[in-house]
Every structure is written in C-alpha cells, then in structure tokens.
C-alpha cells in the first residue's frame, strides 16, 4: 500500500476512509492499461477540490517536490537561526555546542574553545576579549571574612561586583545582597535588603551575603550534569555552557548564592569587562546559572575580588587559608568568628565577626 501511495495511484484519504479491497481496485485503470498512461479518468471525474487535494502525482515529481521543499525549509531554518550566515561562524557555533564539560577538557581543547569564544565575540562586537583559563594556584585555599561592625551599608561592593562580573543590568542581578538588620538579634526574617536612605541607619547593622564557596557544597552534589564543581583552590565554579538550567542547585543552596538567567542577560557593550576567565565573568546566556566566583579572573592573578577592593571601610577580608601569615588566618585565630547556618554542615568559607 505504501508503494501505491508513492506511485501516486492513491491518496492519503483513500487509506484513511476505505478498506484494503477498494484501494487495490482503484489502482487499475479503466481502460485496462496502467494508470500512468491513462489520462482520461483523471480529468473527467475531478472538480476543483479534487484537482488540489486529490491530485495524483507521479513518484518522480513527488520526490522532487519533497526534496525541493526540504532544501528550502532547511535553508530558511538555517538563515532564521543564523542571520549573518557565514560558514566559519556556524562551524564555530556547532563546535561550541558539542564541546565537553570544562573539567574534562584537555589544555588543547580549552585553548580551542577560548579561541572560538574570542573570535565569535570579535565578529559580533569588534572588541577583543581576553578569556583566561588559569588553573588554580598551588597551596591556595581562599577564605573570606566580613566585619559586621565596619559594614555601613554603602553597597559599593555591590556596584563593583556587578561591573566586574558583567551581570545582567535589566534584571539588576546582584551576587551580593546587603541586609539591614535591626539591633537585638541576627535574624534575617525582618531584614531589609532593598533600602535607600542614609546609612548607617540608627538602630540597625548590616550584613552582606553572597556565595560562601562551601567546603561541603550542597549545590555541587545535586547537579545532574556536573556543571558545577569545587576547584582545588576552593572556588565553586560553574561551566556556563554545560549547565542545562534545571535549577536544582538553586533549590539546594541554603545561602541564596546562585542566580539564574531567566532571560538573555543584557550588559551594555561599553560596560563589558573584557578581562575574563572561562569559569568567571565571561558573558553568559539565557537559561544558565551563575554566581559569585570570588572574582576568579582576579584572585588567580593575586588580586583581591572586586568587592574587597571596593569596600571603603575595609570590612571585607580575603586571603589564603593555607598561609599562616595571611590576614584571613589572623582573623580566624584572633577574632570571635562565626558562620551562618552552621548547623547545616556545609562548611562555608565565609566568616563573620565583629570588632
């Protein structure tokens, strides 16, 4: 029956609405020859409806029509997805789509993907971006301390973080939240993080939260594709091109450390920070997770993260936990430090203390 369909002796309607016996009888021509030679019964019995919907096609014309429309369709799809159709660009995009998880890449593959990303960016904007793939430094484990007495709620850290890490401006994405809490208890229930009045406000104190890069990160365990992991220097990172956007990690994080791109992130071209790291502040796309990376593009080069740099009161302290001479170790050894939600067993590497 399928061959009959292709030969053009019958149409789809014939199969649906009649049974096998009538189909086989329709296939033969009234004048006794086979139907391709016989034109008479086609034109006599047909009306306009039949001419369009019951048009009999020969196999050759059916195939050619189908192939042509397939080619046109493919071409249309291709150009719809690729407005600047250049084959080199599409080849790069194809390779980008099928690349591996970053932690499984060889150094050569990392170089290749950086090359592709910088080329694509240059083609798109004309600007040259520098994406580093610096490995973690040996004998380094980053730790962070926050001085509650010195934070005055200025939010200079938030501004610096947004600029440094190329975060989406239209949804006002911020990795850092500054909470204004009333004196009397460290209770976030009544805390306000959307304040705009002179700071520090009377009777309140300020605490900043962000990803704490836990030693026991719950977000790493739950990712089904392993798109997030903890590097040797303690930074919990995300491979943005590997993330499938299931948001399980967001549900697992007790500290509101993670942000999701619900739409395409919008960073004005003039404000893009061109000094980037593959796992850090390179430009993300919609549908992927992102978070604080302790400014991996800065810290792996010996610089402080942007928030530490920007804080005018010096309330933020960052350093190498494995170095006994570091300021972070001095703080841990000499100040009364605590961590938030300690009972969850996540071992965050972000301590709070007061003067």
């Amino acid at each position, binding site marked *: 029956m399928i061959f009959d369909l292709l030969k053009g002796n019958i149409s789809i309607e014939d199969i*649906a609405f009649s049974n096998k016996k009538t189909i086989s009888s329709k296939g033969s021509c009234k004048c006794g020859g086979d139907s391709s030679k016989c034109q008479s019964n086609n034109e006599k019995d047909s009306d306009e409806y039949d001419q369009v919907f019951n048009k009999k096609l020969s196999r050759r014309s059916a195939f050619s029509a189908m192939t042509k429309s397939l080619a046109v369709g493919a071409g249309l799809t291709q150009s719809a997805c690729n407005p600047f159709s250049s084959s080199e660009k599409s080849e790069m995009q194809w390779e980008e*789509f099928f690349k591996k*998880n970053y932690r*499984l890449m060889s150094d050569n593959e990392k170089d290749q993907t950086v090359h592709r990303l910088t080329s694509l960016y240059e083609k798109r904007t004309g600007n040259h971006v520098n994406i580093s793939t610096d490995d973690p430094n040996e004998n380094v484990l980053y730790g962070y301390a926050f001085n509650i007495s010195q934070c005055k709620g200025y939010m200079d850290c938030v501004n610096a973080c947004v600029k440094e890490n190329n975060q989406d401006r239209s949804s006002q994405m911020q990795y850092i*939240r500054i*909470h204004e809490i009333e004196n009397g208890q460290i*209770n*976030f*229930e*009544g*805390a306000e*993080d959307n304040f705009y009045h002179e700071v520090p406000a009377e009777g309140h104190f300020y605490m900043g*939260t962000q990803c704490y890069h836990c030693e026991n990160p*719950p977000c*790493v*365990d*739950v*990712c*089904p*594709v*392993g*798109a997030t992991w903890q590097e040797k220097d303690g930074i919990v990172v995300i491979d943005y*091109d*590997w*993330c*499938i*956007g*299931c*948001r*399980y990690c*967001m*549900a*697992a*994080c*007790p*500290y*509101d450390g993670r*942000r*999701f*791109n*619900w*739409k*395409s992130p919008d960073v004005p071209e003039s404000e893009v920070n061109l000094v980037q790291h593959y796992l850090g502040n390179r430009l993300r796309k*919609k*549908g*992927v*997770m992102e978070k604080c990376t302790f400014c991996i593009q800065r810290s792996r080069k010996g610089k402080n993260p942007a928030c530490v740099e920007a804080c005018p009161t010096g309330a933020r302290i960052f350093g190498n936990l494995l170095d006994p001479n570091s300021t972070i170790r001095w703080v841990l050894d000499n100040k009364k430090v605590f961590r938030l939600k300690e009972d*969850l*067993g996540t071992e965050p590497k972000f301590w709070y203390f007061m003067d």
Partner: protein
Amino acid sequence: MINEFKIFIQFVKGGFKVALLGDKTYHLWMGLLTFLMLAATFAYSIQIKEGLVVTGMNDRISWGLYISNFTFLVGVAAAAVMLILPTYILKDINFKRAVLIGEGLAVSALLMCLAFVVIDLGGPARAWHLIPIVGFFNFPNSMLAWDVIVLNGYLFLNITIPFYILYCHFKGIEPNKKIYLPGVFLSVFWAVGIHLVTAFLYAGLPARPFWNSSLLGPRFLASAFAAGPALIILILDFIRKHSEFEISNITLRKIALIVTVSAQINLVMLFSELFKEFYAPTHHSLSATYLFFGLEGKNSLVPWIWTGILINVTATIMLTIHYIRDNTRNLSLACILLFIGIWIEKGLGLIVPGFIPGPWGKVVEYSPSWIEIIITLGVWAMGAFIFTILTKVAIAVETQKLHHS
C-alpha cells in the same frame, strides 16, 4: 522471521486504524486535545525564544507549576503497580483486565513527567549533557540523575511488558509467564523506587526545611496510591460504560479499598506533619505558616490549601463509609474529589511553599503566567491523547476486535 514481521506490521496498522477511527464524540475529544497541544506548542515557542522569564518563576521561587505537576504525575505513574500487585502476585483474576489500562496510564503519566521536566529546563537543547560517556552523568551523587534512570527504566518496563502481553493476545496465544513475570515483579519494586527517588529529590535538601523531613517519601507513596487508583477507577468506570470491555463491580470495589486505605494513611501523615510544624513552631515552620495561614500579609496559597484539605477529608470520609463506597456514583465523586485534592496538596501546595520564605527570609508570592498554564494544559492534553490511543488499542485487542486473522 518475515512472517513475524508481517504480523507485527498488521498489529501496527490495525492499531493505527483503531486509533484513527471513532465516533463523533471521540473525534471531538481528540480534536480538543490536539488544539490544546498546538496552543501549548505555540506558547512553548515563546518560552524558548524569550527564556523562562515568561513564566511566573523568579530567583526566589525557582520551581513552579511545571515541577508541581511533575511531582504529582510521578505518583500517578507509580500507582499502576497497585493493580499489578494483586493481579500477578496475589493472582486475583478480577484485576487482570484492569492492569493493561493501568499500565497505559503509567506510560502516559511518565511521558507527561518527562515532558514537564524538559519544558522546565533553561537549556533543553543541552539535555544531551545528561547522557553518560558522551556527557557527564552525575550519578550517584545527584538525585536528579537517579530520577532520570528510574523514570526511564520504569517507562521501558511499562512499555515492553504490556506490549508483550497485548501482542500475544493479538496473536491469540497465551503470554509466556517466564518472560513477563520477572518484569512484573521488578516493576512492583521499581514503582515504589520511582516515587521514593522523586521524594528524595526534595527531602535531601537541608536548605529547604519544609521538604527536609523523613516523612516526605512515605507521604508521597501514600498520596500516590490514593490518587492514581482513584483515576483508574474513574477511567475503568468510563470504559465499561462506553465499550464492550467488561469490568466487574468487585474489581472496582477492590481498587476502591486500596484508595481508601491510602487516603486514610495520607491523612494521618498530614496530621503528623501539622503537629510537628505547629505544636512548637520554629524558624523552620515558617513555610508551613505561609501555606496554611499566610506570612507578612501574603496569603495567596491559604484558600488553595484549605480547599485541598477539605476535599481530601471529605473524600476520605466518603470512601471510608462502606455503603457510600459501594455505590458507584458516589465512588466516582469521591475519586474525583480525592484526585483534585491530592493534586492541590502535592502539586503547588508542596513545591511553592518550599521556597517561601527565601534563605534570607524574603517572602515573595508566586502565580503562574498564562504561558505556563497553557503549556501545562497542553502537556496534560498530550498525556490524555496518548492514553486514549493506548487504551483504545488495548480494549480492541482484549475484546477480540483487533486480532491476527
């Protein structure tokens, strides 16, 4: 070999025929479902283009209507085992006819679950990253990885075993017990597995105290074995009224007994959870406070959950009383109520409060957007569509209308 292939083609062709032919009501029903599916496809294309910002979800409430329905439907899928257990293992002939329908329901529900998960992804094109070796499959750490395995395995079991049995009936031969019985045994344990794994997805997150309870897994099982068979009762009742497929009252009564006991256990568990949350409320009880009483003036889920509980309690009482349960019309009403009630308390009533308040105490409310609602309706329509086709074919085979000549 070729003969076998020819018989198989005959089966497929016959199946297509059965699926495509029907009376006006049937075509209207399938037409409605197709319309809903097309509308959902359009809505989904908008979601793909703009991103998940078109839904009502945000950084605070990162899972909404899609995952709520997913959670509920995994339970419905697991409930098919409730019919397998008596049929094959307790050798109750009464259930045998109902089992194929139940497994068809399991397949449809599972396909709906998989659809909801894919639709909820921010980057569905990258779903191939889940495939082991080619991608990176974070097994055994991630419960989602476990879920992928168990759901697909259950789907495989529920497609192959009923297909084998149906195909044998089509050929007019008795299915070989040695082939299907091990699969049946496995699927009993597997069904409990899929729903426990899905529960562990939520229960394993200490960041969300509303879910982080040891009772969540058992509660899921209890509510699944109440809602799933309830739906099966409604379907079987409909089938026996509109086709020649015979299902005795005894079968329906036995399934109703399962529903009743499960619904009662579900209520006991609910009471246990309410006690734990509200006897000595802690910071961890804020989510339950939001759900049942409202928090900081925000109370959009309060009428929702109380309606759900009221419906559940009413349905359970109706089912508990013998002479109400034995009357088929009342039974159907109780089953509808129970199904909706459990959908409320296990769907939005479970997922959304888990995120409220946020990790730093923020209370933000959630309401699904139109695109979310249309897509959800479309996925349910897809499930109903698949189920209708599977059931129609199964009934045709079982009533000897479709058989190998």
